[in-house]
């Protein structure tokens, strides 16, 4: 198996120390995940409680003396002999149900995007994604505050005249039309909190010296959004996206520009893999900014893991 040694800056193979360790590791690989369904105590660890009888368990038979404990004791847990019990005093409010799962997105309107391009604050000759938008210095994304990234709003879409390849986390139909009518491409992509943190501040991430993680797939309530070609989701079928582009052009009344004949064709069609965080970098690589090297795993187990 391989281990990363920071001193030499490479992955090194080491032999297993003993047969016992190997046996334990092989068990770990074979057996299913430990859970309540496959755990039981050692034999003899649990003794069933029986009511005390006879010579040394007699007289009160384990029921104590007098009171409701020794007598007919039927009161349920929480019962307060008739008054409104504590657990029923406060009604269940659903105002914040599931709030810890909901993400918020930073709004970027089309007018502002056009302004950034006009003032050369945002380059359009490379694909624009999360990292580029944060690098303008005008936006900050806080994954710890349950922010999911950027959403593109349609304010000022009439004045939008840029051909760009943009990747955001949410976009409305009018915004998609505004981008596509100018000959650009738009994709909506999901970044899990760790990937989001890495993408928003790549330099701080590389300084940590950890391998680039795999970007996780969206949670259940978001996977439909990102698999829908209407939203230009990154997990949608590109053939269906082509059809939706045609339909949207018909709906909004513009002639669909031909990307194939555009000079920026390669840039406009450049897409990240669903597991990639940065353009040009794979999961598993360690970027060393000090020595200006990229360190890649050699062990097949690690390679297989990062490609999965």
């Amino acid at each position, binding site marked *: 198996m391989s281990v990363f040694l920071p001193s030499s800056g490479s992955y090194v193979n080491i032999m297993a120390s003993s047969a016992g360790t190997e046996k334990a590791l092989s068990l770990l690989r074979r057996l299913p995940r430990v859970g309540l369904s496959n755990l039981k105590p050692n034999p003899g660890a649990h003794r069933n409680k029986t009511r005390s009888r006879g010579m040394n368990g007699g007289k009160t038979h384990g029921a104590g003396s007098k009171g409701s404990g020794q007598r007919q004791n039927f009161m349920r847990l929480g019962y307060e002999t008739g008054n409104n019990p504590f657990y029923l005093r406060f009604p269940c409010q659903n105002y914040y149900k599931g709030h810890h799962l909901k993400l918020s997105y930073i709004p970027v309107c089309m007018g502002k995007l056009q302004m950034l391009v006009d003032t050369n604050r945002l380059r359009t000759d*490379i694909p624009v994604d999360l*990292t*580029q938008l944060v*690098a303008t210095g005008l936006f900050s994304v806080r994954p710890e505050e349950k922010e999911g990234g950027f959403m593109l709003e*349609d304010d000022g*879409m*009439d004045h939008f005249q840029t051909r760009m390849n943009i990747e955001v986390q949410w976009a409305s139909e*009018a915004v998609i*039309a*505004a981008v596509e009518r100018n000959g650009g*491409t738009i994709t909506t992509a999901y970044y899990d909190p760790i990937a989001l943190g890495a993408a928003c501040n*790549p*330099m701080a991430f590389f300084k940590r010296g950890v391998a680039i993680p*795999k970007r996780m*797939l969206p949670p259940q309530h978001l996977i439909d959004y990102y698999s829908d070609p209407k939203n230009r989701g990154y*997990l949608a*079928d*590109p*053939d269906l*996206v*082509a*059809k939706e*582009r*045609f339909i949207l*052009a*018909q*709906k*909004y*009344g*513009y*002639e669909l520009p*031909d*990307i*194939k004949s555009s000079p920026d064709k*390669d840039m406009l*069609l450049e897409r990240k*893999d*669903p*597991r*990639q965080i*940065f*353009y*040009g*970098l*794979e*999961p598993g*690589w360690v*970027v060393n900014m000090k020595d*200006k*090297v*990229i360190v890649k795993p050699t062990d097949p187990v690690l390679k297989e893991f990062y*490609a*999965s």
Partner: protein
Amino acid sequence: MALSALSSARSLSRLLVKNGRYIHTTAPAASFKSSVSLEKIYPESGLDMTRNIQPPKNEGINFSGYIPVEQLQVSYSRSSGPGGQNVNKVNTKVDLRFHVETAEWLTQELKEKIAEKYKSSITSDGCLLIRSDKTRSQQLNLADALDKLRHMIHTAAYVPPLPSSEAVERQRRRHEAAVRERLRKKRDRSLVKQSRRGPESEF
């Protein structure tokens, strides 16, 4: 390793750092494909979002829904109504027109139907005119105008289904029953009015 700014070769991977310069790396990951890449999720797909979609054709009275936007004349002007500086300066009103007779994308039957049903929307020089200033946005107003046009063509092309022979028979029977009842009531009323008259004098 030296920093090389603005490397233009497609094969080099790029990493944009905050100060705007690039780092040149060997063996780029442009072809990184994980187990959830689009090829794995959609193995039968061509994975081409730029493929040409053939627009559907109109056949006879059936309108396919496709409108070639390049053959319409779109003009913009300022909208009416309140709105201050925005409504005074921004061209959000959309005028959509096309000459019905010479439109190649409509069949002859459709043209006739449109000319008949929407003659009030057709100008003196034969252009069908559609206006929209519904929203604050030119783009959305254009979408609204196209929606109106599509709706107009669909309603013009709509041929209500002929009633079935049972329905026709039912209608005839009911009409005749109504007529019979009306005449019966008329006769009854007449008898009542006659009975209220006095006897006719002989002289």
